């Protein structure tokens, strides 16, 4: 009787198999675009331009990836990978540092203009790059930061989300710790380095995962400010590989580049899944 009751909730037998079949089908459908890109990156150009292309990998893996990485179309994909890496890490580390500092100031001090600054940071939530592209472009051009890493990183570095996240977390740190630090005559910065930063480790790691992906996947901003192919990031560089006229695109190289463009973020997301999910929930809610 008990097992029957259990069976009403947790399906067994046929129902369970059906669930697995549905999940496998779901995964296959969701994966198909990635699989097809991988197949295309391992075959020759003639195999693709005479449809239908094969659905099973060919033997051109090494040729296509070597060609993409070391010569590419406009610029070697290796260069674009380095640019993307610098940009993504720069944005993630930069955001984390300035947010840790400003959240510490907001939570642990009373100072003139605190409420004003707090609201100012809050308002930046409402100003994504996309709504202020032309003037922001002019500012960056005015500083001579076009085609530079600083131009790629700084305009995207201020983040209210990260600041609020740290503020929220700092508020949960027991007051006794700050009290003890003060009684011991420790300076605020010492308290920051010895207590606050080590306690925030998990939050920092979770946020890093989210921000790395955010930085890596940027498209519009690098498209505007990197006119020099040497400074292209991989995500925006793929589109530049398509010929403008009637020429046929070099599909195997383009698809190899697409696969290369998704490897770093996929490694980060899948490899640090627990931190990633935590970061996702923390930064959105």
């Amino acid at each position: 009787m008990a097992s029957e009751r259990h069976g009403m909730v947790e399906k067994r037998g046929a129902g369970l198999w059906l669930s697995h079949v549905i999940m496998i089908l779901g995964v296959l459908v969701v994966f198909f675009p990635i699989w097809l890109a991988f197949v295309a990156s391992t075959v020759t150009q003639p195999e693709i331009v005479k449809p239908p292309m094969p659905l099973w990998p060919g033997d051109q893996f090494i040729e296509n990836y070597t060609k993409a990485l070391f010569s590419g179309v406009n610029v070697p994909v290796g260069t674009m990978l380095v640019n993307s890496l610098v940009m993504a890490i720069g944005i993630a580390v930069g955001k984390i540092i300035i947010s840790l500092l400003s959240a510490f100031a907001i939570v642990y001090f009373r100072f003139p203009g605190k409420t004003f600054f707090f609201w100012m940071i809050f308002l930046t939530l409402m100003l994504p790059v996309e709504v202020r592209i032309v003037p922001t472009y002019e500012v960056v051009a005015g500083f001579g930061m076009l085609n530079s890493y600083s131009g790629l990183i700084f305009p995207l570095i201020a983040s209210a989300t990260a600041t609020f996240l740290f503020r929220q977390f700092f508020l949960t740190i027991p007051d006794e710790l700050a009290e003890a630090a003060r009684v011991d005559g420790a300076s605020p910065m010492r308290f920051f380095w010895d207590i606050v930063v080590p306690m925030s480790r998990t939050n920092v790691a979770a946020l890093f995962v989210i921000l790395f992906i955010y930085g890596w996947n940027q498209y519009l901003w690098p498209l505007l400010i990197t006119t020099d192919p040497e400074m292209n990031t991989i995500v925006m560089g793929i589109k530049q590989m398509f010929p403008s006229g009637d020429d046929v695109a070099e599909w195997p190289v383009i698809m190899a580049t697409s696969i290369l463009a998704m490897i770093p973020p996929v490694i980060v997301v899948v490899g640090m899944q627990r931190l990633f999910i935590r970061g996702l929930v923390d930064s959105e809610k």
Partner: protein
Amino acid sequence: MEKRVTFRGWLLPLLLIAPQVVISLVFFFYPAGQAIWQSLFIPDPFGLSSQYVGIGNFEYLFGDRFYLAAFGTTAVFSILVTLCSMIPALFLAVVADRLIKGSGVYRTLLIWPYAVAPAVAGVLWLFMFNTRVGVISWYLGTLGYDWNHVLNGGEAMGLVVVASAWGRISYNFLFFFAALQAVPRSVIEAAAIDGARFWRRFWTIVLPLLSPTTFFLLVVNIVYSFFETFGVIHTITAGGPQQSTTILVYKVFSDGFVGQDLGSSSAQSVVLLFVVGALTIIQFKFIEKRVHY
């Protein structure tokens, strides 16, 4: 909320908050101010001088057939992207939730597309539906359907919607799955003992319990389709054919950078500013109130 224990001094906190404030001023507030300011002027074609027109740019904008069409396109696009990413995600999450073992493996596989940049997703889908080499368009051809998103606006819209929704399925799946796992087993079992079948339990108990997550995801997905799908549209259709996939954000870009119409582009930025403002307020209202059944 305030800390009871704080440190003394005012110079140090100002120094600590300075980097963020300076960056916000230089790259957020000054450009936003510029956008508002420029939206009141029409520059001459050589950029040497500009003429004050007050709300002229806005009047022009809301009388412009193409701009109003972009509003409609954005609405259709964001509703379709939200539905196409939330419904399959909810379905997969419900099925995964019924599994006793193995749901972790499926989750690991299903989160992959989230890591794929919208612009790269655009390239992948463009490749499958390419009119010359695309596998799916070729098979559709053998079935007698002539796929051509380069000429057909409806097909173009369908393609950018699917390419944009694809990566979001992962995201929505994660949130739905977490919410489903949090539904108390006792409630489900009680309903089962009372004889409620699976789908009845789903509609009357599970779905209402999911409403906070659902509303949260609705808002987040709409914000995503408004602002983060630029890459998809730029790689697949570039707003065409005949502007049938030109959403508001794409139009700011194409008028400002391609068309060099700075007055109109700035006015569009200001309109978007209000849209983002409204969406942010809605988002916060939902999070504060925690929509319940």
